């Protein structure tokens, strides 16, 4: 049973009492979206973050290159100062602290674990300096904030959010027959208006119906046409940092057909088509399967998926209901299936079960010492480095499909080396008094495992407290949940 607290959350702290009704405990956490646990001074909106992004991009790509065109060393120095001025090295670390505080310090770790699921579902991959400035804010504002609404709302918000539009190139998706497409300058400057399929394809494949729905290349192009015109306003000075809005001048005129249904030209088309996509049977099946794969097993069965699909149908895709159904299935299969944890969730579980949450995430008072213009000191840059090193950085996925949910993708020599190294690191985040506490591992084990005697026996073979930590968090019982 204790496994369940790691399956849907991050385990229990050494002194924490196990809730008497685990299922209710977990389900209650996903009913609403509470305020963030993080109390630091830097919780900037996605729009505010864009100001820093613009400064970085405009100065990096134009101003500095012109100014230092014959002085490579001067350029490097100026670039370094620019990164200090825009906080490029600071923001992702601050965002990771905000993200991880939800897992190990808040009263809603279950909501946090599902938040991570959705940030991976609507991945913003590592491109256009988005990880340094925008992805963390995007995860808070467009994903987490919508976790008590319907999937439709989340899908619409995630789609037309500025970082997603930038990430999947919809700014370049212009109707060839649109007013803008027919303008003279395009001919003169040889810049014809063309459809950019990238975002439309991922909206179908990754975000809603999945290839199982059997759409065609024609469907992709038609959906891309519906999406033409949605883009940030462009001025040369601001490098696409303005709000996203619908520009009818760039919208392809005429009716479009997706999955056999016609959509009229205009602004409303996108929301209408997303409504139809999220209500397509393949969409709920796809997401129910993904939820089971994330929480329960690499190979979800029909019996696991069905109750989640039912909850979706009954509630019209209301995410708290969908999540509750998924949690219930995870609860029912708790003893039968133990899922290999991805590196980020494993790391958070290691910190949480150790009770080292006073040191990780880096406390607010340390993060708040950062001031724009100054260097981000090494200590504050640890979270970013850590996540990259364990191979699961939520802002640096290489591709728009995010990270795999399959165990085999987390099993390799190097990935296991990381677990050994970072179990050691987790121990070193302890204060000296905890490092020396001879009872600490007994407490962790008694609180978190149903078979404490067996685990204690293994761990007691270690010669030091540090070695105990490395062994404990690399036991099959701790690698899986």
């Amino acid at each position, binding site marked *: 049973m204790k496994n369940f607290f790691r399956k849907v959350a991050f385990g229990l702290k050494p002194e924490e009492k196990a809730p008497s009704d685990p299922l209710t405990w977990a389900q209650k956490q996903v009913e609403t979206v509470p305020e963030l646990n993080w109390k630091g001074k830097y919780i900037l909106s996605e729009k505010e973050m864009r100001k820093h992004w613009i400064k970085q991009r405009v100065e990096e790509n134009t101003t500095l290159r012109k100014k230092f065109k014959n002085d490579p060393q001067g350029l490097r120095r100026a670039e370094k100062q620019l990164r200090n001025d825009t906080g490029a090295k600071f923001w992702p670390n601050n965002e990771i602290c905000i993200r991880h505080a939800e897992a190990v310090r808040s009263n809603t770790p279950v909501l946090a674990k599902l938040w991570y699921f959705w940030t991976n579902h609507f991945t913003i991959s590592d491109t256009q300096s988005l990880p340094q400035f925008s992805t963390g804010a995007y995860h808070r504002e467009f994903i987490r904030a919508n976790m008590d609404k319907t999937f439709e709302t989340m899908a619409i918000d995630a789609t037309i959010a500025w970082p997603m539009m930038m990430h999947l190139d919809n700014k370049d998706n212009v109707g060839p027959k649109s007013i803008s497409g027919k303008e003279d300058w395009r001919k003169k400057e040889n810049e014809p208006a063309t459809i950019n399929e990238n975002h439309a394809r991922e909206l179908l494949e990754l975000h809603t119906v999945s290839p199982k729905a059997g759409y065609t290349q024609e469907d992709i192009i038609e959906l891309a046409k519906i999406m033409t015109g949605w883009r940030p306003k462009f001025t040369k000075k601001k490098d696409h940092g303005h709000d996203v809005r619908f520009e009818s001048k760039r919208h392809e005129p005429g009716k479009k057909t997706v999955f056999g249904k016609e959509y009229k030209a205009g602004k409303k088309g996108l929301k209408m088509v997303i409504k139809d996509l999220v209500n397509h049977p393949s969409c709920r099946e796809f997401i129910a399967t993904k939820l089971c794969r994330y929480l329960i097993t690499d190979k979800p069965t029909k019996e696991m998926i069905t109750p989640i699909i039912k909850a979706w149908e009954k509630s019209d895709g209301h995410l708290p209901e969908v999540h509750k159904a998924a949690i219930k299935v995870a609860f029912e299969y708790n003893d039968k299936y133990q899922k290999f944890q991805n590196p980020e969730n494993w790391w958070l579980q290691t910190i949480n079960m150790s009770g080292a949450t006073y040191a990780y995430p880096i406390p607010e008072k340390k993060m708040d010492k950062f001031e724009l213009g100054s260097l981000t000191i090494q200590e504050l840059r640890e979270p970013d480095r850590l996540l990259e090193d364990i*191979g699961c950085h939520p802002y640096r996925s290489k591709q*728009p499909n995010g990270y795999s949910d399959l165990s085999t993708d987390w099993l390799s*020599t190097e990935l296991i080396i990381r677990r050994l190294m970072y179990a050691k690191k987790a121990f070193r985040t302890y204060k000296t008094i905890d490092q020396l506490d001879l009872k600490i591992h007994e407490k962790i084990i008694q609180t978190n495992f149903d078979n404490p005697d067996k685990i204690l026996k293994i761990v007691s073979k270690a010669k030091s407290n540090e070695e105990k930590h490395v062994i404990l968090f690399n036991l099959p019982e701790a690698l899986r949940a």
Partner: protein
Amino acid sequence: MKISRRDFLKGSATTLFLAGFNLPSLALSSKKKNLVVIMLRGGMDGLCAVPVIGDKNFEKKRKKILIENTIKLNSDFALHPRLIGFNKCWNDNTGSIVHATSIPYTQRSHFEGQNLMESGGRVAYQEKTGWVGRAMKLAKLQGDGLALSLPMPLLLRGVPKNNNYFPTNGKLPQNDTLDLLRSVYAESSEDELIEMMDFIKKRKNEQMISGSFRRGKRENKNLARQAATYLRKSDGPRVAVFEVNGFDTHAAQGGIDGSHTECLVEMDEIINNLKDNLQEAYKDTIILTVTEFGRTIKQNGGNGTEHGYGTAIFMAGGLLKKSQVHTDWPGLKRKELYQGRDLNATIDARSVYASAMSTVFDLDFKRIQKDVFFGDKLENLSDKLFKA
């Protein structure tokens, strides 16, 4: 473009006929032969890397992203001028290109395409093993695969005991700790974890990152140096797999300084550093590239290209027959394009891979075709592309 499709087919008919006389079993050579696969993720633009010469129509469609000052390879094709490493191979007769080729996948999705380029199958996500892994199993090569990446790529799966190298910072735990964990894994029958623990026990602390090196050790060009030192050992791995990301240039693909070029240069540095550091073993090696698809002929409004179909394969190494551009060129006129927009693929890329593995692993081509590529119709190109 001077060669026509007909000329090519005349030439290939004879070789197809001769191929029928292939001996059923191949003599086992005593030399250790290596295969290196470089995965180019995002869709490599074969026409940016290896453009056709003198096709006005092509040049017109790519005005803003055309590569200039290319290196002429033969009367029909040129090489991207920044591929210096590959050009060295070409000049010493160990660099080849197969053009207008692709895996048999036309749906233009990265993720399905990349799954298929690694699995070698026809239905995305159906196969749980990769074509290299299955061929290694057929050749009874266990513990001979090395991935230069953090997760184990699908391409190598299908044979147990593959290793990977992508170093991190710090010192490994003591051997006692590793032994204890290994014994626990053994008791719980955690086979995969046992395998990995065995590799970790062989790992040396100097192979970890320490001090000033930090991130540099993880760059592909430096991983290539390290991989070469493993590959050239007689008891080292026989297969290495690299990944280069970022070929998906829908916008700002650019010309000679563009983002597509940067990716190609990263690939080129791998080839170059392997060649230099493999030393003598380069003679007994095939390096080749895979990608999920090529890109559209026509540039889009953002000076990028969309997902396409036909592309090119780069190959290098002493086991290549000679430097050549092997192709059954389909042409770039509208009616010759795939769906009127993409370079067509006239050679199943898997024919090249099956032929390469037949050479490196000393396996009969037909067995590879049957047991690795599901009996799909493939052409044995061993005689044309590789040394016997």
